[in-house]
């Protein structure tokens, strides 16, 4: 008997089981294959635009992904460093051997957490409440809550050319019955598809025909622990190449052999828009002469190179021709062919903001089963599901992050409010208030929550409070330190290429000028501050106008989100609701007016009617 069972040992499952066990709940993690714990079946990278910020958020809340990535780096860089602070994000190449190994070690060392190798084929449900799971061999294991993080393993089919094989990414056995059972219990099952490119033997590539892509020449960490595990001078490079006219010709000539273009005629899965196969790119963007491809190292322990941008479902012989048409890959040895994978997922509109399902109480889901794609997207949901399943057992309110607090909040709100059609990837464009959701301030936004739920230690929390205090202190002191137009000061400014000052000016106001960097002014500040504190203060001052605009907009949304809709509201009783709106409201069951407004098809008139109905039905007595 366990308190919480987590089904699946991918990125969602690891975070979920760690959160639950660390919060003191007796947890069982069930995985089809212990070797595949925290596996990275697709690209060997963590982070990227928006996703890198999610990793910071996971860390701020007390999750594991950031720390684990820091221990497994091959290369790391800050994206968009030439742009504004809101869009900066870390992207790392992570070692596909080291990352899972370190994660497994952490899981093994965590008290209250057991790992079991098995396939789950059914759930135990009593009175719409989860009671445990049933294994393939019929064995029953009981628990108070279950978190499903099954990834692509529900009825997984690997597609290569005209062949369809029922198996997972590494040829493992998928779960064939669990999704049918879920359907039986009332879930709407959708079919999704994704794909991955070839892996090439490193020694067979002529890198002289490629462009080298290096990591940054300075240290970075995902985690706010700021512990460095790598040597910045020994980072492994990536390489850039382009497709050739021959590549395009081969693909066009063989298009009908691709699983997606006629090779198979029973494809139901919807592929991700942001991640089209190379066939898709060549068909949809026919006039584009070349497409960019990255050669990424997978590990220092084996020699596979991942071709980012070349995912395909062509038959193997065509793949050979395609790969050999690429510069530097004329004699490349393909270690693993590209494939597409089709799998079952549930309709995310059947979830609450806490990631508990509306269909079965105490059943939570996270990761690809909810229709997302990406390691980071999966990990953050796993963390939230782990936290909220624990809080539910503790009879506490769930932790729900708002859209102006975290990308995690944007992601979950999108899933439960809008639902998905194709696999969901986070993009900075999905966040309305991305100026507030920055890489640099993830701890300021979320550390308090992490501490409150018990995943951030006293020590780390105190360190954070110190940092916050210093930020305020520096911010205030900049308002009092004034520079006067003395010769020595102007000479110094001129030496930095900064225009001279004519009147006395506070450092605070000086920093507002676009050409001024705070690090150039440290000699006028009486105390030494860490770079991250200087940076934080600089951003707040420099972009004050834009930040306050964003805050104003965000507050409007928060006001609406704070107007709660009662759980038991009966939309059939509200006269005059538009029928489309009524139907959507009944499925999604928004918890607040703010969430209701974000549902497409629910218009302002419907919102008025709901508000009046609530007022009339629920607040009559209190008047």
């Amino acid at each position: 008997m366990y308190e919480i069972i987590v089904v699946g040992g991918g990125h969602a499952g690891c975070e979920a089981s760690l959160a639950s066990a660390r919060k003191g709940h007796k947890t069982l993690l069930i995985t089809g294959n212990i070797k595949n714990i925290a596996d990275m079946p697709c690209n060997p990278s963590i982070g990227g635009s928006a996703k890198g910020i999610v990793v910071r958020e996971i860390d701020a809340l007390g999750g594991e992904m950031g720390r684990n990535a820091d221990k497994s780096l091959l290369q790391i860089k800050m994206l968009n460093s030439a742009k504004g602070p809101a869009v900066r994000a870390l992207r790392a190449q992570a070692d596909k051997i080291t990352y899972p190994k370190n994660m497994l070690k952490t899981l093994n060392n965590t008290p209250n957490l057991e790992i079991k190798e098995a396939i789950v084929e059914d759930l135990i449900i009593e009175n719409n409440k989860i009671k445990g799971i049933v294994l393939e061999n019929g064995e029953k294991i009981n628990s108070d809550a279950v978190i499903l993080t099954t990834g692509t393993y529900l009825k997984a089919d690997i597609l290569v050319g005209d062949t369809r094989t029922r198996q997972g990414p590494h040829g493992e056995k998928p779960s064939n019955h669990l999704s049918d059972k879920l359907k039986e219990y009332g879930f709407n099952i959708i079919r999704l598809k994704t794909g991955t490119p070839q892996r090439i033997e490193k020694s067979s590539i002529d890198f002289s025909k490629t462009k080298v892509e290096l990591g940054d020449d300075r240290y970075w960490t995902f985690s706010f622990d700021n512990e460095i595990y790598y040597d910045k001078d020994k980072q492994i490079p990536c390489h850039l190449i382009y497709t050739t006219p021959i590549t395009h010709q081969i693909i066009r000539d063989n298009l009908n052999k691709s699983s997606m273009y006629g090779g198979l005629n029973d494809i139901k899965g919807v592929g991700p828009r942001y991640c089209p196969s190379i066939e898709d790119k060549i068909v949809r963007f026919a006039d584009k002469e070349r497409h960019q491809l990255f050669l990424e190292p997978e590990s220092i322990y084996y020699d596979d190179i991942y071709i980012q941008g070349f995912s395909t479902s062509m038959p193997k012989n065509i793949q050979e021709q395609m790969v050999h048409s690429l510069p530097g890959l004329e004699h490349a040895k393909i270690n693993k062919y590209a494939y597409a994978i089709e799998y079952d997922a549930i309709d995310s509109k059947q979830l609450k903001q806490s990631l508990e399902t509306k269909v079965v109480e105490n059943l939570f889901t996270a990761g690809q089963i909810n229709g997302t794609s990406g390691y980071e997207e999966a990990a953050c949901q796993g963390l939230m599901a782990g936290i909220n399943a624990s809080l539910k057992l503790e009879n506490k309110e769930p932790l729900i992050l708002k859209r102006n607090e975290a990308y995690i909040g944007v992601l979950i709100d999108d899933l439960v409010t809008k639902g998905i059609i194709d696999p969901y990837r986070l993009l900075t464009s999905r966040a309305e208030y991305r100026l507030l959701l920055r890489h640099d301030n993830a701890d300021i936004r979320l550390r308090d929550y992490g501490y409150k739920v018990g995943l951030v230690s006293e020590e780390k929390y105190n360190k954070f409070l110190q940092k916050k205090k210093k930020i305020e202190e520096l911010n205030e002191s900049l308002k009092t330190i004034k520079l006067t137009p003395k010769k020595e000061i102007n000479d110094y400014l001129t030496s930095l290429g900064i225009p001279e000052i004519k009147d006395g000016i506070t450092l605070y106001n000086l920093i507002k000028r676009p050409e001024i960097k705070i690090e150039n002014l440290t000699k006028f500040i009486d105390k030494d501050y860490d770079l991250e504190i200087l940076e934080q203060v600089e951003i707040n001052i420099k972009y004050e106008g834009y930040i306050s605009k964003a805050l104003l907009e965000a507050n409007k949304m928060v006001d609406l989100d704070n107007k709660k809709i009662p759980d038991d509201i009966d939309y059939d009783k509200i006269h005059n609701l538009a029928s489309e709106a009524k139907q959507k409201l009944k499925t999604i069951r928004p918890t607040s007016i703010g969430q209701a407004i974000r549902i497409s098809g629910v218009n302002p008139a419907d919102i008025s009617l709901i508000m009046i109905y609530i007022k009339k039905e629920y607040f009559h007595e209190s008047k």
Partner: protein
Amino acid sequence: MNDTIAAISTTLGIGAIAIIRVSGNQAIQIVNKIFKGKDLEKVQSHTINYGYIVENDKIIDEVLVSVMKSPKTFTKEDIVEINTHGGIAITNKVLELLLNNGCRLAEPGEFTKRAFLNGRIDLIEAEGVMDLINAKTEKARNLAINQVNGEVSKLIRNLRQKIIEILANIEVNIDYPEYEDIEQMTNEMILENIKTIEEEVKNILNKSENMKIIKEGIKTIIIGSPNVGKSSILNRLLNEDKAIVTDIAGTTRDIVEGNIKIDGIILNIIDTAGIRKTDDIVESLGVKKSLDLINEADLILYVLNNNEEILEEEKEILSKINSKNHIIIINKIDLDSKIDKSLLKDYIEISIKNDIGIDELKNKIKEMFNLEKLDNQDLTYLSSARSISILKKSLESLESVKEGVKNKMPIDMIEIDLKQMWSLLGEIIGETYTDELIDQLFSQFCLGK
């Protein structure tokens, strides 16, 4: 729900006075911004305050403002009611000022809705209110659609498309920074791109102002020194066209309005009767007030006396009206000519007394406002105060974009204001599909692993 709403509460154009009602936590503050008189933020609740509605220190109207503080009001929020001197043009102008200063145009029935939500109206009325709101919102939605005609919504859609293409390019640079063969959008490119957008928006605004003239009439003022015959000209025009004169008795107002139709063109004539009165006391003040009115008018009828020499201050006014639509009228040609006509370029000579030159005056007006042509051929205008005020706001966003570029802000900051403009334009034509940008991003660029 916490925003401040405003609407004209009386039927437009009917009645001697009009009331504009403002409700919400910013009501007093916003009205105070455009009010000259007592500081409304300091006055007692439930008081009536005399003063002027002003725009950049220019007087729009003389008004009485009732200030009623929460909770003892109809909506239980702060309410301010502005009593204006009726008239379509002035009432709309005041509403427009409120909208530009932070109010939102109230939806039909919204005051009642707030009254209900805030617990002011008895719950028994609930069902009635719900039906009312539903009916009215439907109607308003249709109304809003009709207000934005096909031509202009096509134009705005095109503008939005132009903006979204820029946005998608910026977004793709941010979300896929590793794609080197995708063009990097720069601040300079944005500046270049928004030039045509700005021109087109200004164009629509101009045309919309013209359309306002067609729909609401030409704001015409008759000015001139005392005793040149302004009132007789007004009366002569009015009598013949059976117009309605609204002369509000018992008030201190100095403007008389009358509507005349000349071949389908409506003239809202404002006689500056009060100026004469002020003129007697302080000559210079009279001139200043005339100048203010000149700035607001669509048409100026400037009357000179054939029997008098041109005064210095008349010369001053002549130079001021040069850039505006104006007609110089030399009245009293039945008397001896003492006026130096060589100082005037173009004029019409009339005699009210002997009924000479009236038709010529009317023809001249028709000639100046060749409105039929405008009406039939060009439909790219906005007709509702709401749409016009949103469009003006979108221009402000564009200004912020330029400001940001000037301050060398990073592109993702600049983009905030550009996005704001894009969603404002969307508001005008009722498009608020939030995933539009992401759809655009993936259709415009080739990306993926």
